[in-house]
């Protein structure tokens, strides 16, 4: 039964709506884990990390500040672009070019009295475990799967069973157009981002021969300009995808190519979209997903209602294209997760492949998605991307087949990738049956 006493924090009149909910048990509150009288103070003493100050990040900062959190850090190395202004509501036209983290932090601090937001205009990879250890919660609003995987692997690695403080719940949101998802991860306890990697299958790449000789779609012409023409002509020292002059060059090249093959549909906007892999984004969807993440943050921090994550559902899919549809479910932890599992993940391979083919396949496999893998077998190093001397020494292996290298069906290999410095992925080679 609901309790009636409210236990306000430092400013009772200001936070009265929030305090009614977070400091009083409701019919769904788990009484054993909850003490309403402690909530306001506990939340004021927490430090929360926000990763990303873009479309989701702006919303997340606002929402956390209005959820009673007082100490927030935000990491984002990006600067503000004019195309951010249709949704990143803490930025104005005159802020274009400034650091997102800084402008967002100052804005929310100014609007919501008493909240302290520390901006870091850096990459998440610039910080070590000591830095991440200071937070009680991490909320991610990112558009890159690499960054998500990195922070996920880092938080899983930080867990020390004997230190309660080493468990940092990770709340992650993502959007695309009218769709999005939010999920809660208790590192090592529940399914992690690496367990869920197959939910983000990479887009199938167009074969090089299609680009080179038989283009059919406007995208093929653009990719040709991007991958082949640029390298052949090197019109500028290096490709800057945010430089309109560079995009215009690619656009014109693609257009000529399209005219040659009578392919309609190459436009500037499409060129930019393909080259930068632009994902459509609107304020409304960011509002839904960021709020869902922060709603879970409030519930986790206060225990005033059950949150996503444990023991049941941990994932909400949202789609607004056709009516509104949410699917909230439990994504199961995988024993063979290369980050949080104990078993090696099975990898179907053809024994006739060369090691080079295996290395390349890591980039496109939905269950691996590693772009610069270095591979070790139990008894020897097969291929190392760095340092240069080791790369040179192991390079000849790339042309040998798996069988020639003495690998056998069921053998375990360890894979590392510079994108995940601290993690070694374990895979078990499963040889395809040859006919």
């Amino acid at each position, binding site marked *: 039964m609901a309790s009636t006493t409210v236990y306000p924090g430092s400013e009772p009149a200001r936070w009265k709506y929030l305090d009614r*909910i977070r400091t009083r048990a409701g019919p769904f509150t788990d009484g054993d884990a909850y003490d309403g009288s402690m909530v306001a103070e506990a939340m004021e003493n927490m430090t929360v990390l926000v990763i990303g100050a873009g479309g989701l990040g702006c919303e997340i900062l606002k929402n956390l500040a209005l959820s009673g959190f007082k100490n927030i850090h935000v990491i984002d190395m990006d600067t503000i672009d004019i195309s951010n202004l*249709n949704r990143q509501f803490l930025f104005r036209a005159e802020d274009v070019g400034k650091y997102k983290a800084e402008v967002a932090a100052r804005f929310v601090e100014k609007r919501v009295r008493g909240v302290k937001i520390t901006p870091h205009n850096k990459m998440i990879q610039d910080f070590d475990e000591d830095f991440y250890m200071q937070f009680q919660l991490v909320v991610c609003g990112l558009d890159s799967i690499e960054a998500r995987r990195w922070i996920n692997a880092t938080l899983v690695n930080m867990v020390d069973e004997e230190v309660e403080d080493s468990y940092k719940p990770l709340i992650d949101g993502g959007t695309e157009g009218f769709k999005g998802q939010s999920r809660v991860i208790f590192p090592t306890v529940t399914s992690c981002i690496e367990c869920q990697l197959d939910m983000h299958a990479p887009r199938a790449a167009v074969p090089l021969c299609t680009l080179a000789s038989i283009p059919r779609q406007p995208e093929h012409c653009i990719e040709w300009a991007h991958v082949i023409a640029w390298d052949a002509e090197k019109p500028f020292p290096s490709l800057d995808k945010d430089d309109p002059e560079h995009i215009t060059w690619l*656009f014109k090249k693609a257009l000529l190519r399209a005219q040659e093959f009578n392919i309609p549909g190459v436009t500037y906007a499409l060129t930019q979209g393909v080259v930068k892999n*632009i994902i459509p984004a609107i304020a409304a969807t960011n509002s*839904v997903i960021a*709020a869902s993440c922060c*709603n879970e943050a409030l519930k986790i921090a206060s225990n005033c209602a059950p949150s996503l994550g444990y023991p049941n559902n941990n994932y909400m899919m949202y789609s607004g294209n056709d009516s*509104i549809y949410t699917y909230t479910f439990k994504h199961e932890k995988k024993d063979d997760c290369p980050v949080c599992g104990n078993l090696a993940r099975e990898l179907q391979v053809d024994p006739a492949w060369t090691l080079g083919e295996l290395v390349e396949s890591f980039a496109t496999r939905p269950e691996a998605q590693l772009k610069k893998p270095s591979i070790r077998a139990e008894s020897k190093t097969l291929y190392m991307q760095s340092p240069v001397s080791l790369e040179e020494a192991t390079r000849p292996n790339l042309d040998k087949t798996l069988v020639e290298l003495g690998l056998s069906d069921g053998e375990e290999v360890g894979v590392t990738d510079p994108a995940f410095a601290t993690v070694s992925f374990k895979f078990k080679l499963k040889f395809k049956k040859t006919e």
Partner: protein
Amino acid sequence: MTEIVMSQTPPILHGPSEKEKKYDRQLRLWAASGQAALESANLLLVNSGAGVVGVETFKNLILPGIGRFAIYDDALVEEADLGVNFFVDESCLGKPRSQCLTELLTELNPDVHGSWYPSEETAPSLDSLLATSPVFTAIIYTLPIAPERLAQLEAYGRQHKTPLFAIHSAGFYSYFRISLPGAFPIVDTHPDETATTDLRLLTPWPELVEFARDMTKDIDSLDAYEHGHLPYVVILLYYLERWKQTHEGRYPSTYKEKTEFRRIVQNAARADNPEGGEENFDEAAAAVLKTVVPPSLPSGLREVFDYTPSEPIEERSSFWIVANAIKAFHAKHKTLPLRGNVPDMKAKSSVYIQLQNIYKTKARQDAAEVLETAQSIAPGRQFDPAEVELFCKNAPFVKLINATKGVDSASSTCVNVLREVTAQELANDENAEITLSPLSLLPIYLALRATSHVASATADEILSSIEETIPGTKDHERIVSAAQEVARAEGGELHNIAALTGGMVAQEMIKIITKQYIPIDNTCIFDGIASRSQVLRL
């Protein structure tokens, strides 16, 4: 070097305008046509209570650039607003809330015009605002609201055919309900690209048959390159023709026949090459089950065909005239106008482009026939050929929302519907465990609805109000819990739930204003404890 390259290209090219740059990420969703619709919209928010959810909705509409907005709100800013609403600050205390919200919201986008009420000079009351303002495209009101005020808005909605959005957000719960003035058809529904493939393999027209025959007449003597680059459409047409010859003129129709046919196609691939197979034949085999299908009439379009517009203004709209013309087309040809898109497939560039043109030409012919029929239905009317073409292209995905008439929230029909839906939902819940379906969120709606006109209420007050509307519910366990949860909030909003709901409402508003994508029909309930939603027609 750069200059030489530049001078070779035609000078017709220029990059995007400043506005296109700013709105780039949304133009990819609703294009210039949708943007133009947004920019001509004029929205009203009638705000009340804690007053956050409507403001969050407006934030998400001002950023993408709606034309103008107005906020009507009697409240003065108090301390509690500062802990829940982002668009007020310390300097606002004691000032009209509508003024502060409007000023801080307008900062978000200099292209948008905002105004606030009540205002002594221009509109001291809601009545005078409704009477003097340019017609509103849509009105949002937040609950709780005084019954007289609600009646005023509903009367306005009826008179001006203005969609009304009711939103109620309290604690971890919220719902919103859209009342549309009549049937709401959508042509530009943005179906999933993968669902739109319609190749007419079982009803090919002469040009397509000719093209396929020509490419395959010496199929066995084609060299490896030519054979490996036959487009899968041509491969399937060729083997379908052969199947017919050995099956008394019939195409494969049962699942068993189709899998047999798929095997034939797969086995026809040449394996005497280094790859040990042919990618185009793999594509052909993979496409069998999805593309070897007779023409059908999707349920959404059937509903449109079966609907009889009830009002003259509806009947005269170009949508219903074109819909009738397509209906006539379908009656005559037993198939819909061709969409005309060809998915990417392995093929030589020139062959693919030829194939694409065969489909496009046929699609244009079909659209021209529909246009002609439309003109004969409404002589003297001018139709935009592009609009007719879009309709033909999207015909299988056209959707009709709110086909049965909407009703005012207080009317007896509304209560009857609610009783029926409640009985149905609670009955479904009995079997939820067996059917593995989530429990109904209707109890949340019932509990919030019981506080539609009061600032706050105890659980017992909520339960007796529900009992009055729907007898036999006061002891229902889940309704009791929902009532207790609503009571816990005492009418207060949680910022997150307001922001989340404001995001959903803004999405729906965009869909209705742009007439793109498919809006809800008609009530969406959100449970912030279980983190899920449910859409019901109430």
